[in-house]
């Protein structure tokens, strides 16, 4: 089974997270990293969830990682794979695994980021086998 395109709902962008989606529109995956404790986090916040510092900064992620977990949603008109990908930067993010054989997806598989257009909004980061 391969992925046919599922329509991606648009993310509701707000000022706190606009840089993430502006970068996504340019094909770049951004993360937030804390200038106080040095840790990256996701989803991105103005306030660090680890140390509560407001010295968080946008960094560019390499866009490579491994599948932490996934599930293929079968009982829908267009089956799709939801997943969590652990990035090289150490954070794990919810995403889709796309452009591949859904039955061949495995935990631990290496993946890379690609961006998919959404329904009236900025593109979102999804992952495909590296």
């Amino acid at each position, binding site marked *: 089974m391969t992925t046919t395109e599922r329509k991606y709902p648009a993310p509701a962008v707000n000022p706190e997270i606009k840089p993430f989606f502006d970068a996504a529109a340019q094909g770049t995956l951004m993360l937030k990293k804390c200038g106080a404790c040095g840790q990256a986090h996701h989803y991105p916040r103005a306030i660090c969830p680890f140390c509560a510092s407001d010295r968080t900064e946008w960094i560019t992620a390499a866009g490579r990682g491994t599948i932490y977990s996934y599930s293929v949603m079968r*009982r829908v008109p267009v089956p799709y794979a939801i997943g969590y990908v652990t990035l090289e930067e150490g954070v794990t993010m919810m*995403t889709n695994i796309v452009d591949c054989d859904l039955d061949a997806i495995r935990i631990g598989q290496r993946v890379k980021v690609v961006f998919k257009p959404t329904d009236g909004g900025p593109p979102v980061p999804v992952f495909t086998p590296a």
Partner: protein
Amino acid sequence: MTIKGKAYIAGIFEHPTRKADTQSLAQLHAESAIGALADAGLTKDDVDGYFCAGDAPGLGPLSMADYMGLKLRHMDTTETGGSSYVIHVAHAAEAIALGKCNVALITLAGRPRAEGMATGTVPRAPVAASPDAPFEYPFGPTVVNQYAMAAMRHMYQYGTTSAQLAWIKVAASHHAQHNPHALLREVVTVEEVISSPMISDPLHRLDCCVITDGGGAIVVVKPEIAKSLKRPLVKVLGAGEAPKHQMGGKIDLTYSGAVWSGPAAFAEAGVTPSDIKYVSIYDSFTITVLITLEDLGFAAKGQGGKLVADGNLISGVGKLPFNTDGGGLCNNHPANRGGLTKVVEAVRQLRGEAHPKVQVRNCDVALAHGTGGSLGTRHGSATVIMGRE
């Protein structure tokens, strides 16, 4: 300060309907409330504390106090999804211990079937301004595929199998056959579970709970009132609650917030897992039960599959009887929220009022646990331990 022995569960009611085509939401709440008050031997005029969650209509306690004509001096609307009502029992005990109310009423109701809600397989529209939503909703998170990711990781990390998960449904079905109100009363086999249609890998249709309308209510009272009533005495011994979330991206789907709510409840109650004669475990999906039992200390992490297999959760057969009403997997999951019915069946067991075919002998200490929200993203875990006096 502790709630141990400071409050008793005097009234319980599980609404018998499973499809409420002819009742309103407020009506279902009120019918449940009247049922639990009648069970206790109390009336609505005795109620001075009211507890409800996000399923209540309108402005929650304001709308329901208005509808039912309640005069209140204490309200609590703690909302942690399906586990809310387990937390409400603890918060009611706290309020009673502090003298903030004497008779606390907790209600739950909903009609997702009558409303034709696509409960598990369609992403739910995000609550306004949820900070996580822009980073989740576009990817199609549904209730079932989020829990499925927890199951997939548990299988990968610990070797848990679909057959082990299926045993949880099998045990629930053995109990449900004796419950005339249960939505699904047919006993199923492991083979039937794992050959049922795959909904979202690795969860099959029969790994998923039922979708039902209905509701329920609980009445928690101060000791003097409990002892003046004619019902068996069921005492709140201890409770714990905790949220678990994504920890800034340090995600670990193999455990739940029960790792925190459980020890807190056991410590307050002064008991250990080996003292528990019966457990009501929130069973939105089979994986929810397995992970929760590990986290509560009934099995080592990763060993839950062995604990639940081979009928070990079946009353009269195994060592750890669970969800003897058939649980959410077979009996009832009113309003897509199963926490309240977990407390109700635990109280039935402690009173000796469970169905004779599933009643646990000498059931003096029981545990009820709720998991609200999603194991795959964020959830509220709540544990309450109760004892027969």
